[in-house]
């Protein structure tokens, strides 16, 4: 494999995970702040808030899946 090709794959994989993680981070930041406030008022919401908090993880997970696809297919 040529050096340039490896570089491209590596960059692509890194971007897929990295940008996904940034997106997830931004979304979870907002949700986390709101959830912390809500839980302070009503501790029984803890469970439900935990679920809402993991919703944006889809982004980084799809990024990771994409990186793996680049790794194994391209």
């Amino acid at each position, binding site marked *: 494999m040529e050096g340039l090709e490896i570089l491209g794959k590596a960059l692509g994989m890194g971007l897929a995970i990295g940008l996904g993680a940034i997106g997830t981070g931004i979304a979870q930041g907002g949700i986390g702040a709101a959830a912390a406030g809500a839980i302070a008022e009503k501790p029984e919401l803890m*469970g439900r808030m*935990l679920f809402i908090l993991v919703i944006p*993880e889809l982004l980084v*997970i*799809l990024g990771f899946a994409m990186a793996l696809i680049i790794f194994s297919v391209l």
Partner: protein
Amino acid sequence: MILPMTKVQVIGDKRHLYPTITLLHDLGVVHLEDAHGDAISASPSDADRDLTTRMTLDSVGEEKKRISDEQLLRLNAVLSGLPRPEDDAHSSERDRLYADISKSDFSAAVETSSGVLDEIETKARTLANERSNLTKELASAEKYEAILEQFHPLLAESAPIQGYETIALLIDRRHEELVALLESEVAEVTGNRSYVTSADIGEDSTAAIIMFASDAAEAVRRLLWEEKVNEVRLPESIAETPFEQALSELHVRKQKIPYQLEEVEKQLDELGSEWWPRVRAVRDVLLDHSEELKRIGQFGETDYTFVVRGWIPDRELDELQKLLAKHFNGEVMTETLEVKELDIDNVPVALENGSFFKPYEFLLSSFNLPRYGAIDPTIMLGVFFLLFFGLIVGDAGYGIIILGASLYLRRRFKEIEIAQMASGIFMWAGVSTIIFGIIYGEFFGDLLLRLHLIPHFELFGLGLPLERTELIMPILIVTAAIGAIHLLFGLVMGVVMGLRFKAYKHLAERAGMLLALIAGALLILTTVLGWPPFLMTIGWVVLALGLAALAYSGGPVMLIMHVIDLIRNVASYTRLMALGLAGAFLANVANELAGMTSIAILGGLIALSLHTLNLVIAVFSPALHSLRLNFLEFFSTFYESGGREYKPFQRSEKVEST
């Protein structure tokens, strides 16, 4: 499954009111509702049939309530001061006594209670007071000792003189100039028959001692009060003694109190060990009586009858009728009421799926109970949760640890419900993890594969172990397929629900998504596997039907949303692959790093810490994501929530754990 409920009305001769309440309480299966005319909002369909008024307590009831409240107040006071013995023997003793006392009637219970109170109330109160006084005294002795010790250097200069009094002051360092001011003013009011000495103490206060002629005491105190200077006052017991003596007395008290406290606590422990089960049992019985009296406000009455209304699981109805017939000879009757359309949302929901699925019922009720008449997804939740968890973690080594830890928790915290629930879930999640670990050939990552300890073999035409780190694309496809099947399953149930509740928009939406999903799968499979082209045509037709149904349910904008939703939901299941691979890679990295170091201990430590980290992530994250796939993606296809919790009117048999 959701227990089928019957709406039941119990009507009887008022003379049998209290025995009937006790009988219902003993039976413990009726979820009581308001049964009088004021309760229209709770049960809309009964509005037309109510000739009854809200029942109020008669004089006998009022008297019972007064007595039980009074006794409960005293029993609770005794109980709060009485240490609870920690061993099981005392708990079972309480259970035995509770069963004994609750067999007898109210007046016998009150008699027992009075007897118990006569025996120990004074003693318990005295001991508890003594304990609290000693604790307070100890605290104050420590505080004053510290203050007096600060005055110690000054006291040497101001030995007591006949006809003179001393006052000690503690002044904030910021107001230090006050000392000089006081000195001159005190000299003025006493006619120069005074002496003031001061010294700095610690970081921020100044101590001062004023000696003055006793006959000017009143004037000096008034002056201090006017100047708002606080005198250091000693505890009353030593207020009259001179400082030097007071200090030594405080020393002595501080030495002695802990022994006295120990003695009092020993006596309290003995008292608790002897009496706690009996006090607790009689308290609980009276609490039951008080609860029964409180419920009377929910009943309805006419001049000669009482009316009780509530929900009862179908299978318990016979038992209730038999018991009433046996005890009251037909003078208390039951009647089953028709459940009208309006009432459906009021039917309490009780889940029953056997002990294996009990923890999942708990999870479900913390999320949202299903609506009465809807599908109870507990069993599906349990099965898919275990499947997904194993699929993600898939490591025999981690599985063994999870299983072992759960078994330990289960034995260690028998009394704590939440520990039992969690271990009930994770025990089997551990087993599922071990099974998938065997399929993947993973034991703490690729440890065994690295050491060539796993034979490659074939099972049902499948080459095992399936090394998932080498099979990224196939596993990605399999997980998306699992998602499609899971959602398909949910959508079929969603269609059934739509039919059952006659919610046609919902029905169209779910049927549309179902058809679109089938069509999508068909089109992809036909293209990839080269199936005959007529299947392709069928696929397009089904897709068109599905989209039409979606457009009918919510218009063109929602049509696009639904299609995106569907694709996103299927894609969401690829997390089963992604999370699993991330864990597997981390485990492999741990082994790799350990192998790279030449020092065996260092390598072992690196591997141990990375595997521990991975294991912690492996318990938390996959559990959350497996639940999420169920609660969000799967439930959105069919789940009807909003049930009311079934809370039967029952006795508090067991002692709650501390």
